[in-house]
Structures are given as structure tokens and as C-alpha cells.
């Protein structure tokens, strides 16, 4: 029982990281219908910003986090302006290919600039452990889960309360109608990319103190996060979060009780099962088609 509880607690930080990346992916998917795999590179950028800010410039981890979010958000907007916006007139498949091309470019630029050495950011809560009913979590795991809840809460408020957030939801529900009532699509799209980029950057920073990373992390993270988005329902915010929690749990339980080799597969297996049973995903509004 204690092992199961420990595995569930360990899932906290896996799920939190997945939730942030999946949330950004699903926002862009909902607003622009772009499978923006380049967000993996923004996650990677966040991790490298955190690494260099804390090691080379001696910045505190808690200042590196907003800095990384800013950098990743700007990069996301740059991707949109330079690549996705000119490609508007093409089909979704074309933008997906462009996204993969962009991921390839950014990941390999990082390899050229930073090399293939594994990096790890110093844990900002060294040695802190919290006992919980026979199992323990580290202070950093607790911080990570808290940061995820805070960020998701902020995104939620932004979408529900601010004019730009409302516009974003309107465009994602009915693009034609939103344009008819005079919403500026450019502003909404920039907001979606900035927000998604900041979330990916935050996830990268938060992960950088627990998971050693190199530039290849860009592809691995985004692929799994996208499987979560399909599982939860494409374009659905609650779907992304519930999907991340389910996949994080399933992964840790498979890893602890069955075999770590196959833990990597759980997200994908869940995705395939959902496609067979309910192609729209757990929370998807409609069957995903063009």
C-alpha cells in the first residue's frame, strides 16, 4: 500500500509537467488548429534559460522562472509571426509539417549552441522532505505541484475574466462568429502563442531541477504531451489537465508495479484506446476532423 501511495505522490510532479505543456498545446490547437510541435523547443529553451541564469549569472531559481517564461513566450510569438502566420492559407497538415521542421531547426540550433551534455539545475529546496501518511515527497515536488496549480489557475482566470482571454475562447469555439463580431484574430493568435510559449517555458524550467536534459528533450516531451492532448480531447482545457493527471499516474504505476521499460508507452496506449472507443477524446466537444 505504501509503495502505491508513494508512486501516486511521485506522479504529482510528472503530471504537473505534462499538464503545463499539454495546456499550451491544446490552447493553440483550439484557437488556430495548429499541432504546434515546436512548443517542445520552447520547453527546452525554458530549461536552458534556467540553467544559464542560475549557473552563469547566479540568478535565483525563482527569478529564472519568470525570465524563462518570458523568453519562451517571445519565441512562441516569433514562431507564429515568422512561420505559422505566412502559412495560414494552407491546410492543417502543412502547418504540422512546418511545426516539425521548426522543432528540427530549434533543437539542432540548441545542439550547436549548447552541445549534447546533460544539464541539471540545482534543486532550490535541497534536503527538504515532507512525510505524508507513510510516504514522503520532496520539498521541490510539493513546490512543483503548487506552481502547476497556480499557473493553471492563472490561465483559467485569464480565459474567464480578461477581454483577450474571452476573445481567445470565442475564436476557439466558433472562429467565423468571432470574426463577424469584430474580434481581431491577430491579437488573439499572438496571445495564444505567447501564453502557450510561457507555459512550455515554465514547464521546462520546473523540470530542469529534477530531470537532467539535453536538446533532445524538445522532441520527447512534446510527443508525449500531444498524446495526452488527443487522449483528453483536442482543444479542451479540462481535457489537457485531466489527461495529464491520468497519464502521469498511469505511467508511475506502470513503472513501479510492472516495468519501467513500458512506462514510456502508457501515454500512447491510452491514446490508442481512446481513439478506438471515443475518437473525440475524453472531453472533446466534437469528433476531430477538418
Amino acid at each position, binding site marked *: 500500500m505504501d509503495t502505491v501511495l508513494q508512486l501516486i505522490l511521485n506522479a504529482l510532479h510528472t503530471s504537473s509537467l505534462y499538464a503545463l505543456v499539454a495546456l499550451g498545446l491544446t490552447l493553440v490547437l483550439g484557437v488556430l488548429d495548429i499541432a504546434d510541435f515546436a512548443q517542445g523547443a520552447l520547453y527546452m529553451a525554458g530549461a536552458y534559460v534556467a540553467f544559464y541564469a542560475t549557473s552563469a549569472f547566479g540568478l535565483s531559481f525563482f527569478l529564472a522562472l519568470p525570465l524563462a517564461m518570458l523568453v519562451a513566450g517571445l519565441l512562441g510569438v516569433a514562431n507564429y509571426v515568422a512561420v505559422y502566420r505566412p502559412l495560414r492559407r494552407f491546410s492543417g497538415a502543412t502547418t504540422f509539417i512546418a511545426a516539425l521542421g521548426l522543432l528540427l531547426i530549434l533543437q539542432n540550433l540548441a545542439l*550547436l549552441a549548447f552541445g549534447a551534455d546533460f544539464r541539471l539545475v540545482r534543486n532550490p529546496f535541497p534536503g527538504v522532505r515532507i512525510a505524508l501518511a507513510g510516504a514522503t515527497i520532496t520539498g521541490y515536488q510539493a513546490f512543483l505541484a503548487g506552481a502547476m496549480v497556480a499557473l493553471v489557475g492563472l490561465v483559467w482566470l485569464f480565459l474567464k475574466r480578461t477581454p483577450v482571454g474571452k476573445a481567445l475562447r470565442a475564436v476557439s469555439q466558433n472562429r467565423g462568429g468571432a470574426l463577424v463580431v469584430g474580434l481581431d484574430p491577430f491579437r488573439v493568435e499572438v496571445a495564444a502563442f505567447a501564453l502557450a510559449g510561457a507555459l512550455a517555458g515554465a514547464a521546462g524550467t520546473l523540470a530542469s531541477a529534477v530531470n537532467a536534459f539535453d536538446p533532445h528533450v524538445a522532441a520527447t516531451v512534446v510527443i508525449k504531451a500531444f498524446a495526452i492532448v488527443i487522449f483528453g480531447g483536442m482543444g479542451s482545457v479540462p481535457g489537457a489537465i485531466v489527461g495529464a493527471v491520468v497519464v502521469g499516474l498511469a505511467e508511475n504505476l506502470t513503472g513501479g508495479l510492472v516495468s519501467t521499460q513500458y512506462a514510456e508507452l502508457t501515454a*500512447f496506449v491510452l491514446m490508442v484506446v481512446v481513439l478506438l472507443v471515443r475518437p473525440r477524446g475524453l472531453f472533446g466537444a466534437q469528433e476531430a*476532423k477538418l
Partner: protein
Amino acid sequence: MSAATRSLSRGVRASWPWRLAALALGLGVAVAAPHVFTGIAAQHLLVMVAINVILVVSLDLLVGGAGLISLGHAAFMGVGAYTSALLVKGGAAYPTGLLAAIGAAALAGLVVGVPALRLRGHYFSVVTFIVGIIATILMTNLVDLTRGPMGLPGIPFVTLRLFGWEHTFRSVVFKTGFYYLALAFALLALLLRWRLGRSRFGRSLAAIKGDENLAESVGVPTYRVKLTAFVLAAGVAGLAGSLYAHYTAFISPDTFTFIHSFDLFVMNLVGGAGTFLGPVVGPAFLTLLGNALRDLSPALSQVIYGALLILVIVALPDGLVGGARRLLRSLGRARA
């Protein structure tokens, strides 16, 4: 097609004697190539072009034929490669291994196609992309079967027996013979693709590409037609995988990753999806370009590759062949 549009398209296309002459010229070049380029490195490139043509032609049945952007094609190549390598290593004759490779890859195509084809548009592409990754994880982790990341060495060369005549293609050193074998399969794949394109099945695919809902409403069983095409394409990819395995005598999961699936798709796109020559021009162009970029660092060549890809999407959406065709057409119009 009405008589008017038919005559219009005939007026724009080259007349058949020209096409026949072009075809003969292309065949001549393909047959003469290994005698012009006798170096082992150059001949290796020729073999790789031939194998990639088989893969891209099969992928084009989906991409160019039905507008299905499948991004997991290397996985089926891998299934074919492992099936054939393991069987022939275990003592089976090569033709048995080849047929089993086609069968196993087609079966894998069925298993993937049934759930993936329930999605349309780029959601289908994303799922095939992810399936390609699952395949790599499986090939890496099923160590008892595939030896995992260490790879499978010592795969026997292709040996063919026919009425007492026997030939083994020792392709690691002697490449010319194997090149002709691969070329024969590439021509067969091209012929099959061309015939399918003009059949009722090919027209159903074209209807799906044009407008899937419309195709459905005029009675095309869209799901079944798409699934058939997907299984067929996977089977042919399995054939290419078998050729590759017995050509290099060594396979590992690294060859069949999503990167290679992506490469194949890009070859199709750069050559020109849905054109007859595109699936030949694309692999030839990009295999040679990849070789030319090899002296640079791998990371830098990937950056150039990615940038080139985005450029092609924007500037030449119908690829080199489509672009050349448009150029010829506008020249013809200027003359008239």
C-alpha cells in the same frame, strides 16, 4: 471527366511519344548508372535511392493518392526488416522472408489503420507520427526478439534459386547486382502505383482527397478504401524494409525512427506528391543532398534541412516535378 476537360488536360500535358521517350531515357540512366559510378560509396547511394523510391512510391499512394499525410511509414519498413531478417536468420529461404515481411507489415498497417483512420486531416497525421514513435520504443524494448538497441547483425544476404540457378547478392561489397534487384522492385512499385492511380480504386482515393464528405455521399466507402490503401502502402514499405535488411546485413531501431518517416514524407513532398515522377525525383534529390551535407556537422545539416523543408512548403507546394510542370506549361503558353 467531360470531353472538354479531357481534351484540355491532353493539350496541356506532353503527348505520348514524348512521354515514352522520357521514360526510355530515365530507364536508360537508371540502368547505366552503376557502370558510370563504379565507386562503392556512389553505388551505395544508388541502392539507397532505389530502396527509398520504393518507400516513397508506397507513401505517395496515401499522400498523393488520397491526401492522407502518414508520418509513420518507417515503422512499417522496420516491421518488414525485422520479420524478414529474423526468419531468414532462422533458416527460411529469402523469398519466404520477403513474403512474410510484406504480410507482417500489411498486418501492422491494418492494426494501425483501424484506429488512426477514424481521425481526419492533420489529426490523422499526428497519430501516425506518434505510432511511429511507439514502434521505435517497441523495437528498442523487445530485447528478446530484436536485441534492442544493440541491433541485429549477421543478416544473410539475398539468395535466389531458380531452376538450379543460384545467386547470392553479396551486397556489402558487390553492389551492382543488388542495385538491379532493388531497381526491379522500384519499377514494379512505380508500375503498381501508376495502374492503381488509373483504376476505380485510385479514383475513389482521388475523390476522398478532393472532398471526403462528398465522396462518402456519392457512395464511396471512404473508410474501407482508405484502410485498403493504408494496408497496401504498409505492405510495400515492408518489402523495402526486407530489401534494406538483407542489403546492409545489419539493422537496429535507429534506422526506423520517426526521423526516417519524416525524411520519406519530405522526399515525397519535395519530389511532388501525386505526380508520376515525383517519388523518383524526391528520393534521388534528397539522398544526394544529404550526402553533400554530410561533411557539415549533423546538427547544422539538420538545421539546413528543416529550413529547406519550410521553404519548399511555402514556395513549391507541389514539389520539384509540379514546379517544373508549371514552368513548362507557362513556357508552352508563351510560345503559342
